[in-house]
C-alpha cells in the first residue's frame, strides 16, 4: 500500500493486529518514502534502514505469537538529541559529528520496550538552540508545505519528517518553544509535557531547568499514543516525577463540557496577522460549541519571559556545554600546543555561531559580580511569571493562546 503514511497510529495498530498488513510492509513503505522525499526536506541526519527492517521483523513475529506490545511495529523517528546506543547521535553539531553513543536514553528505551520501529534520527538546530532549524551543522531543513520556508525549530527535523509523512510520529524536545513552534509552523500537534513527566536521562542537556522531551504528531490522538509510551518515572533522572501516568489514549475522548479556557489578554492584544487571529478565533468557537466556557485571564508579567529566558537558558547552557572539551568524546582540534589551546580551539571550531553566542552570554551572566544582576534577578522574575500562571489556573482549566505570532517564514 502506497499510502500507509496517511493512516493514524490507531489505524496502523488495527491493521497490524488484524494482519491487514505487516510492520515490514509499513516500515519499507516509510523507508522508500524517505528515499524519495527527504532529499528535498533534509529532515533526517541518520536513516537506520537495516535496524528498522530488523525491528519490523521482530514486531511481526510478536504479532504472530500474540505477544504484541502497545506500539508494536509503528515506525517513528527520534530527534538527534536522544542518545541511541551504537548509533550516531550528533545534536546537530560538528562537536558531536563523530559521536556514537555508548548507551541509550530512557526515551529511546521506552519506545523500544513498546515495540516501535525507529526509522532514524532527525535534524535539529545545533544543541537545540534556534527556532528555524538553520543552525544545524547538517544543513537547514525545509518546510514540507513550502520549500525554502523554515519548519521552525529546534525540533525542525522531527516536525518536517512527520508533516511530510516520513514517520508516524517523532520525539522532540522543548526548552523555549522547540516543540510548540515547529508544530505550529508545520501544521502538527506538539506537546511539551509538564516538566518531569518524561525522563531526561540520555537527552543531551541544553538548559536543565527548562528542557523537557515530548512529541510531534499529526493529531492529538497520535500524540496520546506516543506520550503514553515515553512517559513515566525514571530512577536515572532525579528530576523525573514519581507520579502515575494517566492513560492519555483513553482520556482523550472524554467530554470537555463545562471546562473553562482562559484567554490571556496580553497575547490577544498583540499585533497578530489577520490569518492568525482568524484561525485562533475559529478554534475558540469550536471549543464553545463543545460546551467549554471562555474567559479572559491576566498574566501581567508575561512580557518578562523573553528577557528571563535570555538569561536562564544561556546561563545553564554555558554550564552544560562546558563538558565539550575535546578530551573525552566528540570533536578535538588538531595539534593543540597546550591544554588551554586544546580547549579553546576545540570549542571555537566545534561549536557554531549561535551556540557560541549563547555560551558567551551565559558565561557573562554567571561571572563574578554579575550573578545577582542577571541570573538571580531572572530567577526572581521567573517566580512572578509562574505565580501569574498559578493565579490564572485558580479560575480556568486551560490557557489558550496562539502558538507563534506568525506562520512559517522564508
Amino acid at each position, binding site marked *: 500500500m502506497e499510502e500507509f503514511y496517511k493512516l493514524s497510529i490507531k489505524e496502523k495498530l488495527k491493521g497490524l493486529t488484524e494482519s491487514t498488513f505487516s510492520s515490514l510492509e509499513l516500515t519499507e513503505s516509510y523507508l522508500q518514502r524517505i528515499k524519495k522525499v527527504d532529499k528535498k526536506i533534509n529532515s533526517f541526519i541518520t536513516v537506520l534502514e537495516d535496524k528498522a527492517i530488523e525491528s519490523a521483523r521482530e514486531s511481526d513475529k510478536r504479532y504472530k505469537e500474540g505477544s504484541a506490545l502497545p506500539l508494536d511495529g509503528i515506525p517513528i523517528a527520534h530527534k538527534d538529541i536522544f542518545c541511541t546506543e551504537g548509533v550516531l547521535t550528533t545534536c546537530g553539531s560538528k562537536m558531536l559529528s563523530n559521536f556514537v553513543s555508548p548507551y541509550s536514553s530512557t526515551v529511546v528505551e521506552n519506545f523500544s520496550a513498546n515495540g516501535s520501529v525507529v526509522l532514524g534520527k532527525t535534524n535539529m538546530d545545533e544543541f537545540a538552540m534556534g527556532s528555524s532549524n538553520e543552525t544545524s551543522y547538517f544543513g537547514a531543513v525545509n518546510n514540507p508545505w513550502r520549500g525554502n520556508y523554515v519548519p521552525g525549530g529546534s525540533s525542525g527535523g522531527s516536525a518536517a519528517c512527520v508533516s511530510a509523512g516520513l514517520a508516524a510520529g517523532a520525539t522532540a524536545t522543548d526548552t523555549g518553544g522547540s516543540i510548540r513552534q515547529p508544530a505550529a509552523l508545520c501544521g502538527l500537534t506538539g506537546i511539551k509535557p509538564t516538566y518531569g513527566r518524561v525522563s531526561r536521562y540520555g537527552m543531551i542537556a541544553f538548559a536543565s531547568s527548562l528542557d523537557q522531551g515530548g512529541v510531534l504528531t499529526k493529531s492529538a490522538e497520535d500524540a496520546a499514543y506516543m506520550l503514553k509510551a515515553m512517559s513515566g518515572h525514571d530512577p536515572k533522572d532525579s528530576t523525573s516525577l514519581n507520579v502515575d501516568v494517566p492513560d492519555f489514549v483513553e482520556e482523550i475522548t472524554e467530554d470537555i463540557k463545562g471546562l473553562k479556557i482562559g484567554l490571556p489578554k496580553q497575547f490577544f492584544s498583540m499585533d497578530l496577522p489577520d490569518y492568525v487571529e482568524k484561525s485562533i478565533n475559529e478554534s475558540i468557537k469550536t471549543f464553545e460549541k463543545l460546551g467549554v466556557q471562555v474567559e479572559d485571564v491576566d498574566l501581567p508579567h508575561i512580557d518578562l519571559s523573553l528577557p528571563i529566558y535570555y538569561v536562564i537558558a544561556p546561563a545553564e547552557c554555558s554550564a552544560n556545554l562546558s563538558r565539550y572539551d575535546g*578530551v573525552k568524546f566528540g570533536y578535538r582540534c588538531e595539534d593543540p600546543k597546550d591544554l588551554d589551546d586544546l580547549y579553546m580551539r576545540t570549542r571555537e571550531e566545534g561549536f557554531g555561531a549561535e551556540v557560541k553566542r549563547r555560551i558567551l552570554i551565559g558565561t557573562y551572566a554567571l561571572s563574578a559580580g554579575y550573578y545577582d544582576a542577571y541570573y538571580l534577578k531572572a530567577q526572581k*522574575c521567573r517566580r512572578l511569571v509562574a505565580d501569574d500562571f498559578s493565579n490564572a489556573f485558580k479560575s480556568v482549566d486551560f490557557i489558550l493562546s496562539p502558538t507563534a505570532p506568525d506562520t512559517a517564514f522564508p
Partner: protein
Amino acid sequence: MTLKNKDLEQIAYLARININKKSFPSLKKELESILELVAKMDSVNTESVVPMSHPLDISQPLRKDEVTEKDDRKNLQKNAPLKKAGLFMVPKVIDEDA
C-alpha cells in the same frame, strides 16, 4: 550596556572559546543587544521575591550507596579522540624542569 574589548576577551577565556579578534565588533553588538533586552527585568521590583531555581518543588530522592554500574571503561572510551592504556590523553600540563 556597553562591553569593552577587554570584557569580551575575559568572557571568551572564561568560556574557553577562542574568538577571532576580527569578529569582536559584530559579536559585541550582538551580545549588547541581548543585554539590552535582558535589562527589561530591571523594571520590576523583586526585593521580596523568592528566587525560583527550579520548576518542581520536590526534594532530591536519596538512594542506597551501592554500586549499580559495572566497569564499562572500554565501551565508554570508544569515543575518546586520543587515549592510551585506558587513559584520556591531553597536552602535557606539568613542566619537566619544575
